[in-house]
């Protein structure tokens, strides 16, 4: 092509030299882009203009705010920074930020989609001072429970890790917080597929659905359950040393009359919250817990253990451990019943 006069002319145009004249400004190139702009003020959001470096606390606060960042790696790095800052804190001094600030911001990440973030989160939680966790246990437990019923399998597994850590740190608070005992039991039963109604029917296939999908997961779940039951049912050994303060003569049994050292002592009265039903109620006493456990879960769990032991292997071992815990925890309850 290119035979027509028009096309020839067009081709020529590309190579024509612009004529320069003395005393005139140089004409702009054809591909020139105007990049000048006008602004009343320029605000630099990212850059700090202060001369001295920000304090650790400020940086921690910044990283806390970055925990909602959309990129996985950014969240993970912020968590890592926080972990490092807490770990670097010398013993005996206060943390750069109090746990009451860190925990509410961090606990959401239990349900985070990225594995790296969650693992880092566990590290952060483990680095926190253990005594501070107890007052936030109920919130953490809610998130852990949300994770345990999550649709994604790896989040479910991770939530068990969190739960195990939580039981280790604040086992007593967890089993006695509002909704902590019954709802958790129900949740475990659902996860293991040991629901009361499905057990009765012989035709229901046992390994049905992803709820009980993998033997490995099931083992982990049963281990977590046995830990949980141990925390709730088996009496703590330290309680035996009650008589220690019994001989301070004019005051007898003072420890029964002074306020408990736990936080929110009167929470069980539920003065300001919404009315609770049986599931959401707080079960602070071991006897209460035993009674509820007996009413709602024991039969199902025993039947489930039975089935799991038959499976043998790792599953069987976990089941055996679970059975030991149940026996140990419920021994005196059944003993009493027989006496009466």
């Amino acid at each position, binding site marked *: 092509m290119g035979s027509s006069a028009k096309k020839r002319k067009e081709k020529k145009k590309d190579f024509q030299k612009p004529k320069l004249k003395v005393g005139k400004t140089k004409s702009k190139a054809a591909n020139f882009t105007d990049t000048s702009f006008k602004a009343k003020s320029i605000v630099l959001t990212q850059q700090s203009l202060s001369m001295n470096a920000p304090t650790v606390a400020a940086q921690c606060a910044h990283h806390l705010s970055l925990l*909602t960042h959309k990129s996985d790696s950014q969240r993970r790095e912020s968590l890592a920074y926080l972990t490092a800052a807490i770990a670097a804190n010398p013993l005996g001094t206060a943390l750069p930020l109090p746990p009451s600030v860190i925990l509410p911001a961090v606990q959401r990440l239990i349900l985070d989609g990225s594995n790296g973030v969650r693992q880092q989160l566990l590290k952060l939680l483990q680095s926190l001072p253990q005594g501070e966790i107890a007052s936030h246990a109920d919130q953490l437990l*809610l998130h852990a429970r*949300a994770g345990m019923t*999550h*649709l*994604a399998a790896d989040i479910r597994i991770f939530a068990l890790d969190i739960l195990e850590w939580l039981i280790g740190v604040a086992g007593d608070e967890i089993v006695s917080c509002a*909704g902590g005992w019954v709802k958790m039991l129900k949740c475990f039963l659902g996860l293991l597929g040991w629901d009361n109604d499905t057990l009765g029917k012989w035709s229901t296939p046992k390994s049905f*659905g*992803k709820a009980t999908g993998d033997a490995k997961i099931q083992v982990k779940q049963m281990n977590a359950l046995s830990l949980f039951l141990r925390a709730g049912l088996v009496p703590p050994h330290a309680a035996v040393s009650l008589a220690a303060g019994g001989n301070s003569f004019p005051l007898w049994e003072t420890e029964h009359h002074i306020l408990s050292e736990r936080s929110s002592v009167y929470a069980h009265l539920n003065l300001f919250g919404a009315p609770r039903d049986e599931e959401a109620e707080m079960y602070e006493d071991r006897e209460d817990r035993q009674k509820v456990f007996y009413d709602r879960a024991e039969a199902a769990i025993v039947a489930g253990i039975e089935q799991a032991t038959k499976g043998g292997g790792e599953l069987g071992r976990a089941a055996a451990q679970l059975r030991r815990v149940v026996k140990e925890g419920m021994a005196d309850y059944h003993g009493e019943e027989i006496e009466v």
Partner: protein
Amino acid sequence: MGKRRVGALEKIDADLSNLQYKIRRDPASYKDDLQNQYNQYETLRDLFLQNPSTTDDSGLVSFRDQIEFVAHVADLYPTITARFPEDLIQLLSVHHEELETELRDKVVGSLVLLRNKDVIDSPTLLNTLFPILVSTPSRTLRTLLFIKILSDLRSSNAKATNHKLNRTIQTVLYNLLTDDRESSKGIWAVKITREMWKRQIWTDAKAVEIMKEASLADNEKVIIGGVRFFLGGDKEREEAADESSEDDDIDMDKLRHQAGINKKTKKKERELKKAKTIVKRRERKKNMPHPLNFSALHLLHDPQGFAESLFSKHVQTSKSKLPLDSKLLVLQLVSRLVGLHKLTVISLYSYFLKYCTPKQASVTSFLACLAQATHNLVPPDVLEPLVQKIANEFVSEAAASEVAAAGLNAIREICVRQPLAMNDTLLQDLVMYRKSKDKGVMMAAKGLLSLYREVGAELLRKRDRGKEATMGLKAGEVKERRFGEEALGEIEGIELLEKWKDEERRKKREEQGLPPDAAMDEGEDEIEDWRNWDIEEDDSDDSGGWINVESDGEDINISDSEEEKEPPAKKMKLSNDGSKTKKENSKSVEPEVKQISKLATTRILTPADLAKLQELRLANSITSSIPSAKRRAALAERHLDDPLTAAEIEAPGLLGKKKTKEEKIAIAKADREEHHQSTTARRKEKMLAEGKSTTNKEKARKKNFLMTLGKARGKQKRSLVDVRKTLKGHLERQKKGGRRGNRG
């Protein structure tokens, strides 16, 4: 056997929609999954309730998804999800102000979904949504709730009227209005009621009662909403009904034709079947008796009390803070009530006295209201000063022509309704304006003149009375109607029917060989009547008889003019030859006192009778082609319910006005298409719009000319066959008269 079912289940991974789909197919197998998800939902809800105003995205998204998921499958697991609706209701009603918008909308949507799946019932849903609608500060939520409430009300009234639900909702709306008259919340009651009225779902007195309360409220918005409903709600309803009946006409012939030509697929078959059912349903609907819908103004329980309290509360007192526009609306309503129900609100007329000056803003509306509020039971001495004042203020040589025309027209409109409001000196003065140079004034004065020629000729000067009125006065048959006198009621055309019946009987007797004029035996006649009860039956065996009457139609036509004056009783004395005597009868001009036909009072009219009556009336309507009769018919056409507007008062004033060029062009163009297009172009456009291809001929014409060069051949090189074809085609076209023929 075969595939392991568990395998498919493992695929569900963080995908609720997939799980939802599977649950729908097999609810029993996925119960565990649902239980787990429900647990998850409960946990998330607990988490969320710790801090309802959270705007944290990731947590909310999952909560939202969980709510949607559970709502979709809740109907399959009623025991597990028993508490779900209550939870949602509580969440919404307690936290609706602080919820994040998307979540809030999702909760509303889920509740409606639950209602559609019959998990909850309508009253529960409406009792949840309505208080929020009234109280929420969010505009988007209000619109959403309004739409949802309306659609739910409509759907629960779709199959049959849900009286119970309607009653409860109406009571709620009524209470909303009466509890707090000051608040603007009542506007929602007005809006909902108006919409329901428009869609003919609520057509009862209770809805009107709600609107009545609204117009008696203290909040301006609510008042105006209520008043506007009475003024325009019924028209709106009619228009909506027309619209719904007009939408998408289905051309059954075309569809059938296409089905014969196009490829037969199952889809097309289904479409045809569907179209058939729709057409059939419409047909049936058309044949059904039209539902009697009373207008809102007629359904009012106590119009007198309503009009009085409206007038005294919003218009008369100086305490009312309504602006003039709103006040005028209320005044329009009051005057329509007064005119329609012939109420007596004496203070209303003296109120108008102040506003009847040309300087008053929107005075024509005031005049229209005044005319509307006039009826024949208003005492003339109340109206006389008003008419006098309008005449003094508006109608003078000094006033502008539009003003004078409007004044004259207003006076005419008042006097149409109450002729006694005029005295002779004033009337004679006003009638003089028919000599005015201005066309509008002249026409208005002529209107007044022609009115009084009919209703009160003795008030006019002798030379103005006209031929008819003068003769009538002389004969003494035109009499002035006195105050409070009412015309005798009758069934239009009943004497026609009576005459026809007589004739039929005579014919029958002749056939039987009996003397046609002998005293009729009622019993036999009546038996005949009952036999012909049904219209269809009657048509079949009576059609012959009707044609007989038609055959000597000319004498019927002649007799028509006299018909009203012809007493049916006279018929009995007539001689044998019916048609001849009728001719004589019609020509005799003897004045006869009009008698009221006894037929309707002595006999039960069968449906067949009524059908005949209608037929006779139609045949009789030849007189209606006379211009004056036409005008009268147009006046009669104006329904009593239609309001008198300011535009109608102003109309004669605009007669003399010169139009601008643009207006003239616009009027001339009004009923024509925008731009002209040839039929071919129009056809092509239509084909293109229907997604059809071009013809081969067209393709050939559009082809690049360079591409056709090789194949183009000169005339000389054609084969003999081609030449013959061309010649033959030429001959053919000559015979036909061109390519497209001579058809047009």
